[in-house]
Each structure stands twice: as structure tokens, then as C-alpha cells.
């Protein structure tokens, strides 16, 4: 078991009312799963993903990641935990505009204090694997959306995470690029990486092994 969520609630107070963003979520995810979270806008998909990724807090409930109780951990340990085991892929790629493809992929390693020679070889592997060696000195603005997302995935994978969280990874791409990315995820999943994606697309959901449907913050 990779992670487990029990009786999780998240709410905001608006005026006198408590509005639930997530309402009594129960979730268990095993290593090697490829989960798709689906649901209409505002159903809490991204919130759930961010909580799993430890970027966001929740108000009540339990969250265990690799048997560590995340809800009781201090910020610093939590950061170390996700730094170590989780990679993020965003809908709008979120590459750093001022850095080249090579430097963008290298960034997570800098924060993990890898040696220069190690970084070089890891980044080279990654460039090679995704066939973007020729683009390593280009800046994000010089790439197409699909290529940017590939760089985003390469960056997510560089630190060899157990879990990839992807928030509508194909949302800004055309269908051909989208297909490419989904195939990539499929391959990664076959290699043993756990993937959780948020998606609107039924088609993309079929790449996954399991679908979680959300509506108004509840699993349905």
C-alpha cells in the first residue's frame, strides 16, 4: 500500500456557512496503480490531488503515506517526504521561463543536493529517454505545448519518484499531443510508477486502471 486516506474533510467558511470542498473521503492506493480522478468542475478533484501531493492541508481525517501519518508531520518533514517520493505534472506545464530545458529538468536535483556529475548523467538520461537531447538548450517559450509537457514530465521523473500526480496533463494540448502524453504515462506505469491523474476526458481515463468519480466533494 502506497497511501491511504480515511475520513478526510476539507472545508472553507463563507459567511456563516461551512462549505465542504471534500467530504468524508476514503481512499487506498497501492503501488503500481494508475488512477484517474474524474468529476465536473468544482467537484474537488484538484483539491484532492493537492492534498495527496501534500501541497494543501485538510481540516479533518487521516492521511498515511508509506505508513507515515502525514496529518501529524511538520511542514519540513512533509516537504522532505514529497520531495523524495512525489513528482508533479501540471496542466499548464509550469516550467520556469528563464531556465532552459536542461536546467528545468535539473532543478529538483539542485534541491536534493546531488553532485554536479550525478546531475549531469541523470539529466542526460532523461533527455535521452524522452528524445529531447536536441532541445536541451532551448527555453520553454521556444517549445510547443506537447514538448513543454514532456519536459514537465521529465522534470517530475528526474528524482525517481514513486508517485506521479498529474493535474489534467493534456488539458492544454491538442488530441495528438495528448495521446502521446497518455502513452508516456502508460509506459511509466508499466515500469512500476504509480500515477494519479485528474482528467475530464473519458478517453484519457481509460488509460488508467481505476476511476474515482467525485461530485460535490464526495466519492460517488
Amino acid at each position, binding site marked *: 500500500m502506497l497511501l491511504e486516506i480515511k475520513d478526510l474533510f476539507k472545508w472553507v467558511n463563507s459567511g456563516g456557512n461551512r462549505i465542504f470542498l471534500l467530504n468524508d473521503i476514503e481512499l487506498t492506493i497501492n503501488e503500481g496503480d494508475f488512477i484517474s480522478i474524474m468529476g465536473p468542475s468544482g467537484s474537488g478533484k484538484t483539491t484532492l490531488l493537492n492534498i495527496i501531493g501534500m*501541497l494543501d492541508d485538510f481540516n479533518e481525517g487521516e492521511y498515511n503515506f508509506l505508513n507515515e501519518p502525514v496529518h501529524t508531520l511538520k511542514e519540513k518533514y512533509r516537504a522532505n517526504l514529497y520531495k523524495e517520493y512525489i513528482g508533479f505534472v501540471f496542466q499548464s506545464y509550469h516550467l520556469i521561463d*528563464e531556465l532552459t530545458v536542461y536546467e528545468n529538468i535539473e*532543478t529538483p536535483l539542485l*534541491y536534493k543536493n546531488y553532485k554536479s556529475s550525478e546531475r549531469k548523467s541523470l539529466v542526460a538520461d532523461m533527455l535521452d529517454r524522452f528524445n529531447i537531447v536536441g532541445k536541451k538548450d532551448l527555453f520553454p517559450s521556444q517549445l510547443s505545448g506537447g514538448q513543454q509537457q514532456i519536459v514537465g514530465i521529465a522534470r517530475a521523473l528526474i528524482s525517481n519518484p514513486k508517485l506521479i500526480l498529474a493535474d489534467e496533463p493534456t488539458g492544454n494540448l491538442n488530441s495528438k499531443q495528448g495521446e502521446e502524453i497518455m502513452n508516456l504515462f502508460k509506459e511509466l506505469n508499466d515500469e512500476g510508477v504509480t500515477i494519479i491523474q485528474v482528467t475530464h476526458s473519458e478517453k484519457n481515463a481509460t488509460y488508467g486502471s481505476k476511476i474515482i468519480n467525485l461530485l460535490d466533494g464526495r466519492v460517488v
Partner: protein
Amino acid sequence: MLRNYFKIAWRNILVNKGSSAINIGGLAVGMAVVMLIGLWIYNELSFNKYHQNYDKIVQVMQHQTYNDVVGTQVANPAVMAETIRNEYGSDFKYVLQASWNYDHALSYKDKVFFKPGSYFEPEVTEMLTLNMLQGSRDGLKEMNSIMLSQSVAEVFFGKENAIGEIMKLDDKVDVKVTGVYEDLPDATTLQSLEFIVPWDLYLSYNSWIKDMEDPWGSNFTQTFAQLGDNSILETVSSKIKDVKLSKVTEEGRRYKPEVFLHPMSKWHLQSNFENGINTGGRIDNVWLFGIIGVFVLLLACINFMNLSTARSEKRAKEVGIRKAVGSRRIQLIMQFFNESILISCLAFILSILLVIIILPFFNTIADSKITILWANPIFWVLGIGFSVLTGIIAGVYPALYLSSFKPVKVLKGAIRIGRYAAIPRKILVTSQFAISITLIIGTIVVYQQIQYAQNRPLGYEKNGLISINTTEETHKHIEAIRTTLKGNGAIVEMTETTSPMTAVYNTNGGFDWEGKDPNLPVDFPNNAVTEEYGKTIGWKIKKGRDFSRDFGADSLAYILNESAATFMNLKDPVGKILRRGDRSFTIIGIVEDMLIQSPYKPVRPSLFHLLRRQENTFILKLNPAMSVNESMSKVEAVFKNYNTSIPFVANFVDEEFDKKFGNEKKIGQLAAFFTFLAIFISCLGLFGLASYVAEQRTKEIGIRKVLGATVIKLWNMLSKDFLILVIIACAIAIPIAYYIMDGWLQKFDYRTSISWWISIFACIGALLITIVTVSFQSIKAARSNPIKSLKTE
């Protein structure tokens, strides 16, 4: 890691060329100003430190009371040094008598030059620790010797050895060169001591000094001293207080002479005395410009922070990504600090370049000779330390604030920097403009005061007047010279007198008149003149008549200026008797006050009488019908007939008069210079802020445009906020400026009032500058295509 930070910082600079240029450029200008002012202040404060005995050297000065005020003077009786040596010798290492420092004709073979120098007692070389290049420091022990500064020696002897050569001093005595010393640097009070001759030589051909009936009755020399190694200035100064009082006559005691020691450390910066109290002097300028420097730097730092924080908000997304891929907060903090320090160090480098470029110009307007202290470690430590500090202060906000963002929120775009974030920035811009407007008003008032004093009625006609020093020969032949020059049309008239038109060379006390309080000590400028004086300078007789050759008795006649008549409280002054000792004189006329000394002070009560012996100066009125060059060459030719061995030197009175405004003009020019820079820096800040606000409101502008707002309406909306800020700044600045400048004007007895139009002018100027600066951004924002701005949301 560090390299990654540098890379990103550098690329950020390159990507935002415009705002980087404003940011770095603005800070560099501010730093350059501070560097200039700092160098200038350093130069002022290190004045005279060239002398190793700096801490122990003093000038013996005295306070005296006359006309009901305490006056302070450096002039002493010639016996002062000797007396102090005899009576208080154990408190001093040296006490030395010296003459005034003024131009003497020095000649060697066929070379003749006027060079400034002094007669001094021999130990002056030890006291001033002169750096001997040839000969030794005891070269003044022989009476007929002379020591030359390096530059004077080079004029006469080039690079050759000067020792043992015989020169002629003032066409009178032969002196032997016994030493050459390194020129005293510009930053010394005695910098124009270009040669030294022994005091004994002065006494030997002014034998009347030794024969004076009352050696304490006349003050015409200076006294310098070096305290003993263990002496304390204040103690010794109060000990010698009465050294003169105990020697003077009954009449002299009425002036209450009080001798004191003025230390070398105060010669340059604290040389003003008012009513017997040391009231500062140039130190006021040091403070003034020190404060201006701090303010200009403040302006630049405010900008730097404003612009870097405004820009850093664009980088919220980067913060989010970095956090998402594993950056810890401390690493982000380091990154932002690193970046702002890099920028401030770039600004430091640029500011050094700026200083190198501006320095010659600055030296011209500040009339200084400062240099960059390349070799001084303090300069570098301060400069670099200061840049790092600025970087840290400017980096605090982005470093601490931005690094606290939750990545989910920034990445979602949920963080909108609220309207309130702009408030500190608005306060900063308002204070910037308040400072700038204060400086504008201050500068205008300085210029207005100069203008006002320059337009002060002179009481004489200064155009075409020249002055030439007298010599024995020319004095003897004044009638011949006058007839020749009037005959060939070079001049209208000429006269011989004690003082030139722009200074007072002689004052006298001991006068008595009808109704005078017998215990009131008095002292008046007392000018000996020829009958043609009035006609030459064009004075205006108010009552009575001018001196005239038609009246034989005029040798016992006096003309008073109006202030003297008022001071003496004489109802009907013409015909009244003026007594001095046992002699009586008749007042024959009253002349309109003439502006001779400070253009800012009241005219002193002054007296004029006909001359009896050789005086100091000829004054000539050139013929306006002839060109100046032509008449001057004729004048020179005639004077050369009589002064064959002395170079001809003439001073134009109007030029000498203009020198009286030198100090205030300098302040005016410097103030204008700094005001310009302050406005420039403020504009940069405003420009940056305007672009930031326009960017912040891109979406709003887009929506408004889609809904039908015109460019004019949008421009109006975007500019209005800034105009309000500047109006608030005006409201703050005007009273402050009035308060400060009113205080400054109090220094002058003859002063202008601050006109209302000055603040109106300054405010309208500030508003115009604001409109131009802001419009550039707001029109750009208002004209942008709304589709684009809305799509990026």
C-alpha cells in the same frame, strides 16, 4: 546551486531590460551622488591633516569689542609671539610670528613672477612638518635666506638644483635659496604659502616696527603656535587670555582684547565667529550636503526596493514551481537575496564609472579637487558593504514575503496581490516627491537670494573700474601717470587709496565727536583717498561737498558715509568736528553708503580723508569710449615706464565683486545639481510604479475597454492616482521647505523674502513631470489590445 541562482538572476536582468536599466541605473546614480558627497566630505574633514602636528597646531587670535559688538580677528601685534614665548613658554613647543601671506615679486636673473608667500619665524618648517626636497628644515636661520615650494622652484630653476642661488625679493633685497619643500596640498589652509622668508628680514627693512611707541596698539601680523606635547588646548587658551590686556594703554583696554587659541582642526570648517562665539562656517555646508546625500540615497534605495518588489511579484509562479519541485523556503530566501545583492553590486560598479565621468564636472562646480580614493581600503569596505546592505534591504520583501506563498495557490493564480500592497509603495513615492519638491524650492530660494544680493545698490559705478597695486615709483609719479592716461584717452579718472573697492585694508579707532559716550570703543574703516576718488568711482554726495583741490584745508577734512552719520547720531553732520587724539577734523560731506564688503551684511560706518603718504591701491576708471583691450594696453605701457622690474597686474573691480558670491553660487550650483538628480531618481521610481500598476490592472483595463472605455478615459483613470500623490507631496514639502529656507536666509542680514510663486512653480513643475512620466505607461496600457490581456488570465 549558487550558479543556478546567478544564472536566473542574470537572465531576469536581461529579459526585463527596461526595468533592469531603471533599477540598476537609478541605484547607481544614487550611489554615485553619495560617493561624490562622501569623497567631498572626506576631503573637507581631512583638511590640514597633512601636517603631522595637526592636533597641536593653533592660531593665536583675539576678540575685541567695538561699536558695541565683539569682533574676532587673526591680526595681532608683532610682539605677540615673543611675549607669549617669554611668559608661557612651557606650554608651547613653538610660538611663531608671521606676516600676511600675499603676492611678492620674486626675481632670478631676468625672470620675474608674483608669488604668494610669508615672512615666518624659522621653526615654521618644523611646526608644519614641511617635506624637504632640497636642503634642510633649518634653512631660515640666516636672515637673507628663502625657502621655495617645489612649484616655485621649478618656475625659476626647472629641475636644476636651487640651493645657494641668489634671488631678489620685491626688487629690494637679495635672498639665498636654502631649501625646497614639497608643495602644500590643496587640502591645507596654508596651501598658498609658496615661499617662506625669515621674520627677521621683515623686521630689518620695516625698522619702524621695532621703534613703535606702543607695540601693542596696532594689529598687523599673524601668530601661529604649536602646543607642548602635554598641554591641553582649553587650559592654555584661558591661561593666555589677558596677555594683551595687561600690556595695552588705557584707551586699548576699552576694546577688551581677549587672546585665545584657535586649533588647526577648526581652521577650515569652523572659522566663523559671531559676537565672540565660534559659530561654525563651512561645516554648515558639510552638514547640508551630507543630509542631501543621505536623502538622495534614500530616494534611490526606495526606488530600488519599489521596483524590485513590484517585479518580484511577477515571479510568484516561479516560487510555486520551485516549491512544488522541492525547494525549501530558506533556499528561496537565499535566492532572492542573492539576486538583489547581485543587482546592487552591479549598481556599485556602474556608480564608480559614473563618478569617474562626473568628477571633473563636480570639481568645477564645487570648486574642489577631490579624487577617488582607489588605494583607501575604507572606501572599498564602505562601498561594497553598503552595496550588500542595500541588496539585503531591497531583497527582504521578496525574500520573506514571496517565499511564504503556498505553491497550490500561486500556481492556480489565486494569489492576487491586493490593492493594499500598493500602499507602502504610494507612501514611498509621495515621500520621494516631497523630498524633490523641497529641493526644488530650496534651490530656487538660493538663486533668488544671490540675485537679490547681486542687485543690491552699490553706491558706486563698478563698470570699467580696475585696481593696481602701488609701488614707491608709481606713487611718486601719480600726477604724471594721471595726466598721460587722461591725455591719451585710456581713462576717465584715477585715484590712489588705502583699500580697493571690494575690501577694507584699514580700520581705525579712537575717534571722538559731539555727544559720544566716552566709554564706547569704536572702530571704522578709514580710507585715505585722493581728491579724484569720488569722480573715479562715481560716489553720490548726499549732503555737503566732495573733496576738492580748490580748498586748501581739505587735508583736515573728512567725508562720512550715511551709516557713519547715523551711527554717530549727528543731526546736522556737515561742519561738525571729528577728533582723534589731539587733532580735529571737519566733516565736509556725507556720501551714500557703498557696498564694499559682504553683500549680505549692513554697510559699515566708514570714513574717508585725503591721503598723506603712499597707500596700497590705484583705482582707474577706464574710458568707456575706448575698447578695454586698447585702454588696458595703454595703461600697462605707462605703468611699465615706472615699474620696470615688476610684472604689471590689474584687477577688474566687477570680477572681484563677483567673487563675493562664490560661496553662495557654489551652494546654488551644487543644490541645482542634486535637485536634478533627485528629480531624475524620483521620475525613475514613478515610472517603475506606473508600469507596475498598469500591469496589475491589465485585466481591469481589458474589461473596461471591452465595455467601451476610451483611451482618454483610461489614461485619466490611471494617471489620476499619481497626481493625487504628487499633490499630497506638495502639501508636505511646501511648509518644510519654507521652514528650512527661512532658517537659511536668517544667516543673511540683507535677504530676500520667499515669494509665493516659488512653491507654485515647484508644484506645477512636479505635476508636469509626473504627467509626462505616468502618461508614457498609462497610454501604453490603455492602447493595448484587450483580447490579449484577457486571454492570459
